[in-house]
Each structure stands twice: as structure tokens, then as C-alpha cells.
């Protein structure tokens, strides 16, 4: 009897090693997920699809880079470039809200550094800003919303001022924040 106990104890390390091997064998190395995510990020700033933010529809993306920025914000281009503007993606969303149909223009703007992006966020922040529901770090005033994640700044403006846009703005902002994975 004592011998059997000793034998089991003596074989225990081997069992532990085998179990650990089995556990490790269940995992795969070199998951391409990191590269995938990095490639997608490098494509430029992104805007959520209509489906992901509950919008009725969304226009195709317009992309602007350092050369074509003048076509987008002609007068303010210099300020953007000084802050380290790299690229932006712009689209228009249509959402249904309690008050009716809301049209929101969204622009995701990427800068070369967090400081530049933070500077831009401060400049674009609306007067009388208050936090937006469910979107940490966002500032909105009922018709526009600004939020930053890393080097990317999201600017939302409602083009239907007579409709209450607080919730739709927050909806789009939430979807953007979630998709960026941060």
C-alpha cells in the first residue's frame, strides 16, 4: 500500500508536466489579430458604420490627408496642420430619435501626437459643454459633441437644430469609442 502511494506521488510531477503541456498545446501562437488591428488603424481614422450606431443610413466616407485638407476646412486648414494633422474621415449620419429625424455630420481627425490632438479637442470643445451620457471624456452642448481617444478626435455636429440631438450624438460617439477598442 505504501509503495502504491509513493509510486503515485513519484509519478505526480510527470502528470503535472503532461497536463501543463496539454494546456499550452491548446493555445496557438502568432495570432494575426495584433497585425490585423494595427493595419486597420494605419488606414486612417475611422467612423462607425450605420449599423453599429443604430443609424438609418450613413453617407460614404470622404477622406482627407495633408494635401487635400483645404478641400475640407479651407480657412481652418492652417490651424489643423499646425497641430499635426495627418488625416480625417468625414461622413453624414441619419438617425431616428424621439423628436424626429436627425442629421449628424461626423469627422474623425487624426493628429501626429496626443498633444496636438488634445489641443485640437480643446479648441473644438463647444461653449457651455457638459458630459455626454455613456461616453467618458466627451463634451457636448446638445447640437455638437467632441471626444478624443489617443491621437484621434471625433467631432459631431447636428444639422437639424430644431430636433433634440443629445441622444443621437451620444449614440454615434459611443459606437466610435467602442470600435476604436479603447
Amino acid at each position: 500500500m505504501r509503495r502504491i502511494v509513493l509510486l503515485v506521488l513519484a509519478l505526480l510531477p510527470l502528470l503535472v508536466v503532461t497536463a501543463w503541456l496539454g494546456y499550452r498545446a491548446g493555445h496557438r501562437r502568432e495570432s494575426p489579430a495584433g497585425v490585423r488591428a494595427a493595419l486597420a488603424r494605419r488606414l486612417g481614422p475611422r467612423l462607425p458604420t450605420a449599423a453599429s450606431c443604430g443609424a438609418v443610413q450613413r453617407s460614404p466616407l470622404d477622406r482627407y490627408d495633408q494635401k487635400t485638407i483645404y478641400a475640407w476646412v479651407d480657412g481652418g486648414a492652417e490651424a489643423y496642420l499646425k497641430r499635426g494633422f495627418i488625416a480625417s474621415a468625414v461622413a453624414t449620419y441619419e438617425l431616428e430619435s424621439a423628436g424626429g429625424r436627425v442629421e449628424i455630420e461626423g469627422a474623425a481627425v487624426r493628429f501626429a501626437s496626443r498633444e496636438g490632438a488634445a489641443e485640437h479637442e480643446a479648441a473644438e470643445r463647444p461653449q457651455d459643454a457638459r458630459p455626454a451620457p455613456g461616453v467618458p471624456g466627451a463634451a457636448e452642448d446638445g447640437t455638437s459633441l467632441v471626444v478624443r481617444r489617443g491621437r484621434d478626435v471625433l467631432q459631431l455636429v447636428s444639422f437639424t437644430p430644431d430636433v433634440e440631438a443629445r441622444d443621437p450624438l451620444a449614440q454615434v460617439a459611443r459606437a466610435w469609442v467602442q470600435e476604436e477598442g479603447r
Partner: protein
Amino acid sequence: MNDPHPLLPTPYRERIDRREAVGRLSAALVAGGAIAAGAIFFHDRSGTESGRIAVPDWRVQETGLPPGVISHGGDPAANVRRAVTALGGMDRFVKRGESVLLKPNAGWDRLPEQAADTNPEVIAELVRLCLAAGARRVIVADISCNDPLRSFERSGIGPAARKAGAEVVTSRRVHLVRAAVGGPVTGLQVMGELLAADRVINVPVVKQHSLSRATLGMKNWFGVLGRGRARLHQSIDHSIAELAATFRPTLTVVDATRILMANGPQGGSLADVKRLDAVAVGIDPVACDAWGAALLGLQPRSLGFIAAAEGRGLGHGDPNLLRDLGTA
């Protein structure tokens, strides 16, 4: 008979007994038989000059088939199915019991969204269609430029092909042989599995290329060649046309689910990729390549290898010959 010959050394046995005689005869027969068998086995009947294996012509002898069809739609597998059905179904090309080799572009260690390799769903669907048509064996093979295991794995072609029931042969397992190839391809070894297959389907992806300006189906044959194929770049258009004349596949399936517009043939950045969601299947390899070239924004007949191939009667460099089935 019993007196030993005076010149023979003593002791000398005048008779050997029967058992020993039988034993010696059997040994002689076995030895002789083994030598004869070995001689027959190793005998190279073909001689040194023609010790090279001929390249079969894999085309089907069918008339009335259009040069090719194009299908558009968000599901690559559905596109393949639709196009093959429009050509008469896979059993028109693959007969029951035949072995099929699919030649994808699995040359690069890239993800499917980088459009450097053939879309794995296209390969998987082709494997399924071949097996459904009664093929006894489907091999998916390519001699990759990057590490073969990584290329097949990362492109998704390896797992997708295996899951669909095909055998995957990478350059680590491939068996290269001397083939009867000529022109600039003389002396290069060719994938033995290719030459042994009954039917061959060429499945390229549409990409830009700095030398030939586009790499499509005819250039995809680079992947069946062994060492030394880099020298073909010295006369690229002529070489591609020679390859097209040497390897006549059963079908050409051009994958344009995603195409690589710049920095080919490997790409890397997603900005170089354009999603077109289209697949063309055809029996005219030159027309299929012409269609791919047009997708890249090029004039097909302005490409040297298309003009050369057309000049050699291998097909027609006109993309409009392909029938567009529209969007599913």
C-alpha cells in the same frame, strides 16, 4: 567418373549430393533473379535526352463554351459557384475519378485582407466543387516565395483547403522533377504533383507588378517552378508567354474579391487594396488575364505578356469576351 583428374588438387569430391546441388541452383536463381529485377527497376528506358517528363494538356475538348464568365457579389464562394454553373458545371471539366490540382497564389506571408494571395474562400469552394464532381483527389499546391508554412497558414489557404477536403502541398513537401519545357524555361524543374494531375485549375489573384505591370494567371505559373525561376525576369513578357504555352490548364479562375493596386506583388498596407467582390472563371487564359489587367486600370493589349500570348495563339486579349453575370 570416379577417378579424380590428375591435375585437380586433392581432396576433391567427385560428386556433390542432390541437396547441395539444389541449394546451389536455388541460390544462383535467386541471385540472378534479384539482379535482373534490379536491372529492370533501375533501367532508364527513356535514355538521357528524353528523361524529362512531358507536360500534359489539361484542357477539356469541349466546344461551344464561352471564353469565360464573371460573377459579382459579396460572397466569394457564391461567385465561384455561380460562374462555374454558368459554364456548365464542374462535372463538365472534372470527370469522376480524376485527380485535380489547384494552383493558387499562396506565395506570400500576408493576411487575406492584404490581397497578396488568392482568397481562401475561393479555393475552398473550388475544392468542394471538384470533390462534388467526383474527383478522387484534390491537391492545393504552390511553391511560395516566403516561408511556405507561414504563407499557407496566414493567407488562410492552408486551413481552408484542408477543411474542404484537399491535400495541401507546400514547397517543403513538393517533389520537383525535370520536365520537357523549352524556351527561357529550359532547365528549370517543375512541381511533379502538377504533372501527375489529371486536371489543373489555375487560381490567381489580381495584383500590380513593377516589371510586368500586372501579375495574373499566366504569371501564376512561376509558382510551379523550382530554383532559378528568378532569372525569368530578364525577359519577363516572353517568359510569361512561354509559361502560358507550356501549361494549359482546365480552367482559369481569376480572384478579384480584393485586388492589389500598388506595391505588388506583396503589398502590405490596406490602402493598396481595393475590394471588388468579383470572380471570373474561364477557359481562355489570355482573356481572363486581360480582364484582370483592366481592373487594375491598364490597357490589356498594352501589356507585353498579353500581346505575346495572343500573338502565339494562346487566347484573345479582350476582356469583353467574358460574359458578365452581374451581381448575385
